């Protein structure tokens, strides 16, 4: 389906990208593709009700990929003048002559290219026009609500609100030509609670593509304060094997760690613990993992990916069965697969496989029921470290949270680690919550693992 006529911002980027492709062809490129972005951001941070920092900026950039006889070159810059673009074109072509020949280097072409109108996503003029006074008021309200929620909250790491507008366009000599745009607004609050000399911090935030969908700043402040104060008095737990529950934000982190395991390039290189298991059961029936660039109201919803391939919804794990991996054009060609429209891109780098709206579908148990089903265990609310190693299949992260005793959240825990083998963890998911919210592009409801190693005292 053809794209709608572009807005002014997109039209300008499409023009820059088209000119750069033309210059690259003149400089001797076989195939050429330009990806351009422009953005505007403005934010305010407050402390004790006063402005702490105001920042505002616009920026832009363009990257050029050229391929000649299977050899790849890439250059980028921020100078959109004719001379600036010409320098980028010449650099990219010169570099392509130094790279190794790889027959899989080819720009996407034909039917996969396009614009999926279901992925157009939100662009909210109310955010484009947002008054700085609104952001100041929102940030103040979040800070005030956090302080009001509990007398032990007196200090803040940071509280703020911001907006962000972005345009992107991709044009190639193989027929890609498309643009997308997005608006974002966010409020965030990171209070520090203090009692008996112990400091505990937490943060809560909301980011949306439309102003109307944004959580009330007051609610953000209260939630942040609760998350910090309930950690006061935290201590170590004993080393033991117990059920572990991840709250939605931590569950999203776990799901995000799986993204690399379904990266088609890593799978092709036998560098994923899931690589050999396509078509097999890797998780319980209740577990469905989706990457959906067309999700209504999604933060990462987009009509096309970073190399012009039309957006789609990909079911990665369907009721526990591993179904599909994620591909960009290069990895797809190598693996004789089809691009899933998963090329992630910024103007300063080559496309690479990434997720869009990547989420675990909601389950049937309320979060309260999930906790109630645990006699002794850990409810995790914050984590430290990288966690999942998809090459080796090992998982180990630092964790903070609340100890569960007889189905109740009993006392705060810090300085422990949670460890397991990723495949055993997936197979051992024994409850999935109803509380899925798309607060970030990677999202999940509460999940429970039947048994993991908690290491502490």
């Amino acid at each position, binding site marked *: 389906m053809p794209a709608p006529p572009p807005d002014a911002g997109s039209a300008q980027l499409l023009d820059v990208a088209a000119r750069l492709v033309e210059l690259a062809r003149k400089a001797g490129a076989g195939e050429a593709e330009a990806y351009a*972005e422009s953005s505007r951001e403005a934010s305010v941070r407050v402390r004790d009700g006063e402005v702490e*920092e105001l*920042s505002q900026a616009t920026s832009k950039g363009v990257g050029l990929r050229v391929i000649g006889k299977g050899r790849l*070159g890439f*250059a980028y810059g921020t100078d959109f003048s004719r001379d600036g673009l010409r320098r980028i074109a010449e650099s990219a072509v010169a*570099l392509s002559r130094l790279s190794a020949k790889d027959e899989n280097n080819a720009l996407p072409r034909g039917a996969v290219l396009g614009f999926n109108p279901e992925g157009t996503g939100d662009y909210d003029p109310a955010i484009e026009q947002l008054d700085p006074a609104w952001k100041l008021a929102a940030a103040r309200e979040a800070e005030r609500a956090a302080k009001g929620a509990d007398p032990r909250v007196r200090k803040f790491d940071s509280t703020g609100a911001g907006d962000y507008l972005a345009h992107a366009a991709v044009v190639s000599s193989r027929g890609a030509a498309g643009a997308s745009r997005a608006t974002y607004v966010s409020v965030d609050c990171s209070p520090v609670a203090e009692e008996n000399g112990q400091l505990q911090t937490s943060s809560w935030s909301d980011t949306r593509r439309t102003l109307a969908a944004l959580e009330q700043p007051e609610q953000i402040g209260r939630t942040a304060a609760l998350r910090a104060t309930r950690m006061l008095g935290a201590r170590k737990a004993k080393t033991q094997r117990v059920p572990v529950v991840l709250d939605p934000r931590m569950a999203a982190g776990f799901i995000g760690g799986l993204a690399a395991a379904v990266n088609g390039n890593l799978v092709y*290189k036998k560098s994923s613990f899931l690589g050999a298991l396509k078509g097999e059961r890797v998780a319980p029936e209740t577990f469905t993992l989706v990457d959906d660039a067309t999700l209504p109201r999604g933060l990462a919803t987009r009509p096309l990916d970073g190399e012009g391939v039309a957006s789609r919804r990909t079911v990665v794990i369907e009721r526990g069965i591993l179904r599909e991996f994620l591909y960009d054009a290069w990895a797809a060609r190598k693996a004789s697969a089809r691009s899933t429209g998963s090329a992630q891109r910024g103007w300063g780098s080559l496309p690479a496989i990434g997720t869009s709206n990547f989420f675990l579908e909601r389950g049937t148990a309320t979060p309260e029921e999930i906790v109630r089903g645990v006699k002794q265990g850990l409810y995790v609310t914050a984590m430290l470290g990288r966690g999942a190693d998809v090459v080796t299949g090992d998982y*180990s992260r630092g964790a903070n949270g609340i100890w569960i005793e007889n189905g109740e959240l009993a006392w705060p825990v810090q300085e422990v680690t949670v460890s397991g083998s990723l495949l055993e963890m997936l197979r051992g998911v024994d409850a999935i919550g109803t509380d899925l919210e798309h607060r970030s592009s990677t999202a999940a409801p509460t999940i429970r693992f039947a048994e993991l190693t908690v290491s502490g005292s």
Partner: protein
Amino acid sequence: MPATPRTRTSRRRIASPAARAPASRSRGSANGVAGRPSAAPAPARLLPLPLVEKLLGAASARGAEFAEVYVERSTTTAVSLDEGKIRSAQVGSVTGVGIRAIRGAQVGYAYSDDLDEAALLRTAQTAALIADGTREVSPQAVSRRPLPQHYAVKTPLAEVDVARKIALVSRADVAARGYDRRIRQVMGGYADQTREILVANTLGHFAEDRQDLCRLGIQCVAFGKDERRTGFYGGGGRVDFRFFDDFSPEQVGREAARQAVATLGAVPAPAGPQTVVLAPGWSGILLHEAVGHGLEADFIRKGTSLFAGKLGEKVASELVTVIDDGTVANARGSLNVDDEGNPGERKVLIEKGVLKGYLYDHLSAQLTGQRSTGSGRRQSFRHAPLPRMTNTYLAQGDATPDEIVGGVRKGLYCRQFGGGQVDISNGNFVFEISEAYLIEDGEITKPVRGAMLIGVGPEALKNVSQVGCDASHDPGLGTCGKDGQSVPVGVGLPTVRIDGMTVGGTGS
């Protein structure tokens, strides 16, 4: 690109939707690369001084007490290799200006990648909005600050032929594959950056610096029976390209391969508290996470660090002396001048266990009546500076590494390390152990896998019971993240024994 050991605080500034748009904000900026496409003569000043002075005037026109203009040109080259082939070679150049105005504790920040005078004046006026008075707009005169030279690099890395950079990665790949037939995947990357900065402020200071930085890194995957293990090694710094004549790519490839093969057949790491011995070098990440971030003066000023208000108190074993040193020759974290125009310094943070000082940028110093320690750093012109570490290391002790290991009846020997992270409020930190072995009766025995250390900064440092005589800096790999800004850092540690450290793992 191979895995990068990264360190970061758990602070987040703005919720990142991780969608394409926000992710691109930091692209093409300062993170570890460089390379002007063609050799150029010595560059003209990044921005004419009269214009800089005019911008300072405009930024303080509404009554700001302090204004600063930061100009940066960053040229980068990056080469990546995968499956035995050079996957790509790329170059880019980004120039921009960041303008800051401060009134009291309030900061206005704006930046532009458009360098014409009208656009820059608009940027200065935007930053000026933080103050609301009026003042006559007049240029603010500046004079040059003399600087030391800790990293004289003769030929800017940007001007070194890309073909030579490609050759480095290919040589490392061949060496890694040749090390052992079980090495099946090798990913390699070389990146360099030539970053020129000009910073001027209404205190009348003006400084210019060229900061070259490079890094070669190789990641290997060894395939065993039903298991895969990884290894990572590399290095670089603020060095001439000749550095790689001695620090050979073959050595890098072989070491990455060695790590991957050595851990094949590893048993799960034992979980729970135990004695650990850290091998020297990159293990310095312990200091970076356990104390370094918590001593950064923005956290101290806001009272959000557990080290706030503890100057003069005992916060570590008396064997522990921690130094942050921006003057180490050619090191990755060294600075002739920080991103606010102050010279890099050597600071003793903890001396024999007693807390001696914090790391200050201009703003934190100003607000607390201290002086800047040359610790104001930023990822690029798109970011306002923050207090940051440079090269953070532990002064050496007098135990030999053999004595240290020999004295442990049962414990864990940690030889290679991944990244780490800290929560600066409760002091919880973690760091990953990528290559570890059991110590049994004073001998290093079986390899273990999946280990991670967790602790609370001051407690872990109080449990340091032996410090080796083999002080060593990391080979030049580290990148530290804070508030979404990445900057290159160095760390160092001699062999160290810590008792009662909690090890995360799945074994018993």
